[in-house]
Each structure stands twice: as structure tokens, then as C-alpha cells.
């Protein structure tokens, strides 16, 4: 009886400890995303000062390439260079295969649906998106609409055409497991004088 009690007790403590660990990891994800953005803000000012590829912390393999904001929603984030998916933990990433913001073609920026791009579900057509660049005036975009696509058949042709922006995150929002669907918010470049 005694041995069974202590066995139960040990199991319970193990359960509690494992649970705490797993929980902490889950809770750590948004904290890490926020801390990273704070560190990135400093690297971003260095990027504006003309430093090429300023890494936010010494061992980082990515660096800020733009600052994205949606004034109507009060949302903003530092956008990173794509680095094998690792960068997504710290901020939205500009996909290497896509166009630079403001250039002809489609600039594709992806981020996690439950951290940096959780706000995408609230973005509506007609809203303005500002992409600040380290080496030029901000690029302005107006949201034209959104669509749901499959990740490996996105249909996004990045080359050619006027400057466009595609913000990408996972779909559906609030789902617990990862899936093959992506939510794409489309925006087209607008002249700064028309705002």
C-alpha cells in the first residue's frame, strides 16, 4: 500500500513537472517573439544608419530588412531576412525568392499566425500598409483583398508586374495543429501623394 501511494505520488509529481515544462515552452513562444522584436528594434536603427546586415544579437543568422506597420490597427513589426525558417520565431520574414519591397513584382512577407501576424485576421480591404526600408522612402500599399491557398500551390508569381505585397500566415486562425492552408493578404503599391 505504501509503495503504491509513493508510486502514485511520484507519478503525479512527474506529471506536474512535465506539464510545467511543456506549458512554459508554449508560453515562451509569444514572449520570445516579443523580446526578439525589442532587440530587433535596435538592430533596425543600425540598419537605417547604413550598416548592412546588422545582426540583432551576435549569433543571429538573420537581420532586419524592413519595418512593417498597419496604422489603422496600431500594429507594427520589424521584418527579417528569410533564414531557413528560423527567423520566423523572431519576426515576420521577407522571402528571399520574392521582390524587395517597393520593387516590381511581389514582395512576400510571412509570419506566424499566433504571434506577429495574428492581426492579419483583422486586416480589411482599403487599409494602408507601410513598409519602411533602410535605404529609401517608405513603400505604401493599399490592401486589395485576401485569399486562402495551399502552401505548395500558392499560385504566387513573384516576378514582373507592378510592386505588390503579399502577407502570408497559416489558416485557419486559432487552429491547434499546423495545416497545408495559408491566408494571403494582397496589397498593391500606391503613390504617397494619393494618401
Amino acid at each position, binding site marked *: 500500500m505504501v509503495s503504491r501511494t509513493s508510486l502514485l505520488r511520484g507519478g503525479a509529481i512527474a506529471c506536474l513537472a512535465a506539464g510545467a515544462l511543456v506549458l512554459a*515552452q508554449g508560453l515562451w*513562444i509569444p514572449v520570445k517573439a516579443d523580446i526578439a522584436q525589442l532587440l530587433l528594434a535596435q538592430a533596425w536603427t543600425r540598419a537605417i544608419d547604413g550598416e548592412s546586415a546588422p545582426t540583432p544579437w551576435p*549569433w543571429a543568422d538573420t537581420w532586419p530588412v524592413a519595418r512593417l506597420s498597419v496604422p489603422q490597427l496600431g500594429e507594427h513589426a520589424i521584418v527579417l531576412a528569410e533564414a531557413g525558417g528560423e527567423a520566423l*520565431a523572431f519576426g515576420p520574414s521577407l522571402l528571399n525568392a520574392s521582390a524587395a519591397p517597393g520593387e516590381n513584382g511581389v514582395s512576400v512577407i510571412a509570419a*506566424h499566425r499566433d504571434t506577429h501576424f495574428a492581426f492579419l485576421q483583422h486586416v480589411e480591404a482599403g487599409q494602408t500598409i507601410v513598409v519602411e526600408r533602410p535605404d529609401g522612402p517608405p513603400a505604401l500599399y493599399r490592401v486589395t483583398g485576401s485569399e486562402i491557398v495551399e502552401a505548395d500551390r500558392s499560385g504566387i*508569381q513573384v516576378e514582373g508586374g507592378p510592386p505588390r505585397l503579399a502577407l502570408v500566415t497559416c489558416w485557419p486562425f486559432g487552429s491547434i*495543429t499546423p495545416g497545408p492552408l495559408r491566408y494571403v493578404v494582397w496589397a498593391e503599391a500606391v503613390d504617397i501623394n494619393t494618401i
Partner: protein
Amino acid sequence: MASAHTSHSSGGQAGFGLILAIAAFAISGFLFWSDARADTLAEPADPRAIDGLVRLSEMQEGALLIETVEPGYYLPAPMLATDMAVEIAGPIIRTTITQRFENPSDQWVEARYVFPLPANSGVDRLRMQVGDRFIEGQIHERQAARRIYEQARDNGQRASLVEQERPNMFTTSVANIGPGETIIIQIEYQDVARLRDGTFEMRLPLGLTPRFIPRTDDYLLVSETNPSPAVPDAHRITPPVMAPSSEPGDRLRLPVTISAQLRPGFELGEITSLYHATRIDRSEPDIAQIELADGPIPANRDFVLTWRPANETAPSASLFTEDWEGETYLLAQILPPATLNADAPRRPRETIFVIDNSGSMAGTSMRQARDALLAALDRLQPEDRFNIIRFDNTMEQVFPAPVEASDGRLRQARRFVRNLDAEGGTNMLPAMRAALTDDTPEDTSRVRQVVFLTDGAIGNERELFREIHNRLGRSRLFPVGIGSAPNTYFMERAARAGRGTFTHIGDVSEVSERMAQLYTALERPVMTHLDALFAEGTLSEIWPAPLPDLYYGEPVLMTARLSDPDGMLLLEGRLAQSGWQTRLDLAEAQPAEGIAALWARNRIKGIEETRFQGAPADRIDAAVLQTALDFHLVSRLTSLVAVDVTPARPADQPLNSQDIAQMTPHGWDFDAVTRNTSPVDHAALDPELLRRLRVHASPEEAALAAENGLPLPATATPRELLTWLGALLMLAGLIFLMMNRERRLW
């Protein structure tokens, strides 16, 4: 967040929960760090350790280099055959090079083809066969050419781009090479035979000197990923210095066959191949067929052929014309009579010797340079002044300023030269600056000459040319090219900018002869103020303009576009205070091909050189571009872009190799490399190397991928999952604990 309160509601266990939470935070901190570290830790080992991979700069011969997963490192494709066919008509040399390779892997790959070219020549024809596709090069403006190439490549077509990286280095990209496919590449370029002391010379460059790029502070080897500020395209010409011993393995290369047809326009005298044994068929007096005597040779040494007219007293002028698109183009090579300057008095001189002892000179080159310099010191007279400067990435002068050539000083200088060893990087600029610094610019009793011994393995040519233009003054620059494959482009242009001559020493056995030639030129008076005059009222465009000064034994070499193909050409100049002139009848000119292209090439060179005199860059660009497009030349602003010219065939018809041979477009000739080829020894290929190739999608897969659009990354975190799982586990643990406690109370 609500689930977080669970741990606090555990009453007496609150402290324990807190400790756990802190521990979990610390562990997650480590996870944060390890997340970001993941890529750095996974970095591959130094690829230099992989035997069999090469860099572009290491290639000493024509090669097809397949891209690997290591950026900047390539696997040379097995070469099945190489043929070089040369046609010499008058002074114009037209070379056709055909090389055959095989993709040794069972993957779709992309590759780059490299080939060393003679200075002042450029590829004007490109033909390729990749598998069953036939591709031909067309001249386009460079940006447009790149766009066409990239589009074709993305559409899964075989495409190739020829760009001028440096005027004596030819590279072309070959995309979409299928598994096991054969690739045949044929390039044609044009060159002009050099006439010196009555002997014509042709050089087929088979080796390429590795180049060295200096940095502003430190002189490190440059990798493909770190372009040096002084050489913006450093990552494209990839220059670290390599020991000649580290050549690719024998199984990966096959020797070269060379054949030449010589029709010089006069009765032939002596014909010599300097470094290779040849068999010469001379059944007709003014035609010779030249072939290699011992069969194929390894491609690591330039092939040099010289020929002389049978009758040494024959007229020392040769005129050739070509009618091209309604205009007449003239090539004139005129040798001023040697007797004119034979007995002019010798003038005292101030000679600055500069010797390159950088790492790229190691071995035979250094010995040649030392011998050449020692031979030069022997020619100094007591009334001369001299100094010696040696440089690698550092610089040293034997005397602080030029000194009289006394016996004691010469002994000191010889000792210094004998102790020179080749090591370090190349930083030529400070040495050039020091050599051109003239303490007595007003001294007219002495001529000032700078003799520069180097292999020219440098990448910052532009800075050096500017230095020469700005500081030349009364000095004259005489570059001496050392080694089996020096950077002739740099040296010829440096000689022209420095108003001196270029001497090339390819072998130790040539040192004394070539240095004696140079010294004769240095000691004899110079022909200046050269001008060519045509009949009054006719408009002609002459290049080079102005005509360069002539040293002893050198011919006047000029090209012109003539408005009147008949009439007389009057050539005049000044030699040692007296005038010289000669009159030639254009009606006696012989027809030859390729003169228009040669004229256009000279024109481009002349326009480019106005840059150092302050001509606006946009005007230069416009003139160069127009000339290059008009005459179908590859230049700084134009590229050859390959266009698929495969004849159409029914799509449902299977293809065998015999069909491919029959489909070869009209006028194409790949026979030389299809007749005799040795099969690739696949067993000898290292499968480990093949695994390192950068694999590309097949054209079908690429088309499908283009249709599917950009693949999107995973953008879901396991946050919700982890949070819920953790909360549930903790809840279960708490319930158990509470049940346990209640049981004990009973």
C-alpha cells in the same frame, strides 16, 4: 493565460511550482539560444578539404565546371575531347575551339564554361549542343542578354550567356544539363599575329594565371562571397592564388589537339613552334599545315607559333583590306627600315627596375624574373642611374633614390636580386607609384625608363591604369610578362598607357634573348609623332588614335575605315631629330577576312581609353555599345546570349543519337570532337563528389513549379498545443496529488 494560474492554486505546492517554472524558463532560454544557433552549428566543413572540387580561378585550361552545393566550388565535368583549329590569313588569326564534355551525374545540373583567351581578342561566335538541343549565340546589350538568359533558364530551356569578365577570360553559363548528357561547346575568336624583327608570332593561351585581389588594409585571398571594394566583380573572377601542382586529376581532363592552316600572304621561310613538337606540311610555297607531332598535349602551356618570310629582304610592309557592309577596312603592318636607327648615339638613362615577388610568381616564374633582372643589370653603364623595387603585399627599395651604376652598387643590387623569394600577396599600386616618382623631372640629359617584371596576376587594373596616366611624366613603362601564362591584357595596356613596349618571357631559355631585344629597344631612339595620311578629300577613321610611339624592331600596326579604297597611304614620323616617311599604294593590298572586326575592336579599345582622359562615362558607354552591336562583338556592354535553334521534330517521335547527328544545323561542324573520343571512366568518378552537385529541377518539374507559384513556409507555432498539453498534464498531476493527500488523511 488562464491555465498559468493552475500552478498557483496547488496550495502547499506553490513554492515547488515556482521552482519548476523558473527551471522551465531557464531551459527555454537555452532553447531560444539553440534555435538561433541551429544554422551556424550545421555549417558544413571547409570545402577546401574536398579533393576534386575546384574554383573558377584555379582553372588553367578550358573546362566545364558543374555547380556544387558549396558556393564558388565546382566539379569539372569529364572532358571527352578538345580541338583547336586555327586559320591564319595574312596577319589575322581565326581560332575555333571545340570541346566536348559529359555530365557524369544522373541529375539535372547547371555549369559554367571557362576558357583563357589571348589579350585583345573576344569570342564572336558560340555554338553549343546540349543533349539533343542546338544553341547559337547572338549579340545583345548586356542587361537584355541577361534577362533573355534568365527567362530561358526559368522556362527550362537550355541557355547560355557569354560575358566579358576580363578581356582575356571567357566564361559562359550552361543551364539545364540533363543526366548523363553530352555537351559540345564551340567558340570562335579572332586575334592578330604580332610582327617583330621580321618574325610573325601567334600565341594560343592554354593556361590562365590565377589572379589576386588586394584589399585596402589587408591582402587576403578573396572568396566568392566577399567582394573586395577595389574590384567590385571580384566574386565573379574568383581569384585566390593556387599552386600549379594542385591541378585536377588526370581522369577529369583530356589533352588538346591543335591544327593550323597558315596562309601568310608571302612565301614562307622558317616556321617554329616554341614549346611543342609539331609536324609541318609545306607542299606549297605559301601555305603550311601544322599539326602536333606527338599527338594530344596537356593544356597547361601556351602554344606559340612563329613564321618568317623566305625572302628576308622582302618589303617590310603588308597591307590587307576587307569589304564589309559597303565599307572598306584596311590593316597595315609597316616595319620601318632597321638601318634608320642603327648608329644613333646611346643616351644615358635612369632605369627603375620593379620586380614582383608575390606568391603567384613562385617556382619557374621567379627564377625567370631574377635571371631577367640580372641580365638587365649587366647592360647598365657607369653614366646610368638605377634603382630596384621589389613588391608582394609589401614593398622595398634597394636604394632610397636612384643611384649611379657603380660597381659597388651593382654588386649590392645583384646580391639583393639573388636573395628574392616569391611569397605573399600582390599589391602593385604602391610599387607602381614609387617607380613613377621622378626626383628630377626636368632632367633631359637622361631618359627615364621603368622596367616592370610581373605575371600581372592582379584584379585592380583600373586603379593601376589611372596611376600610370596621372604620374607618367617623362617616364616610360616597359612591362615584362613572366611565366607561362601572364595577364597579357593588363601588360599590353600598361605598356600603351606608359608609352613603352611589352615583352613576354614564357620560358627560362628565352630570358637572355628577350631581354636583349628589350634592351636594344630601350637603347635605340624611339619613333615618335607617327601619323598616317590618306589622299586629300577622303575621310578615314584610324585606330589606334593617336598611333603609339615605335621602339626598335616594332611595326606600325594600324587599322582604318576608308572612304576611298584606292589611292596612297603616307606614313610619317620623327626619329632622333630627323623625319621619316614612307608611301604605300593601297591598290596593292591583299584581301583578308576579319579586318572590319579588328578595326571595331581597336575602336572600342580606343574609346575605353579616353576614360582616363576624363571623357564622360555615358558617352563612352553609348559609343562602345553601338560599335559592339554593329560589328557583333562581345564587349563590356554586350553579351552573347544563346538561342535555341533546334530544328522542329514531331513530339511523339523517339530520338536516338544518330538522329541527333543528322539534325546538326547547316554549317555546324563538331566532327573534330565526335570522331575520336575516349569514354568516361565512370567507375573512377568519386560518388561522394557527385553527391555534392547542386541538383536542379528537370525542365518539366521547373515548369510545374513555376505554375504552382512560390512555395510558402510553415507559419503555425505549436504554442496552443504546448499550452493546452502542459496545462492538462499539470492538472492531472494535481488531481493525483490531492487524491493522495486525502487518502493519507483517512
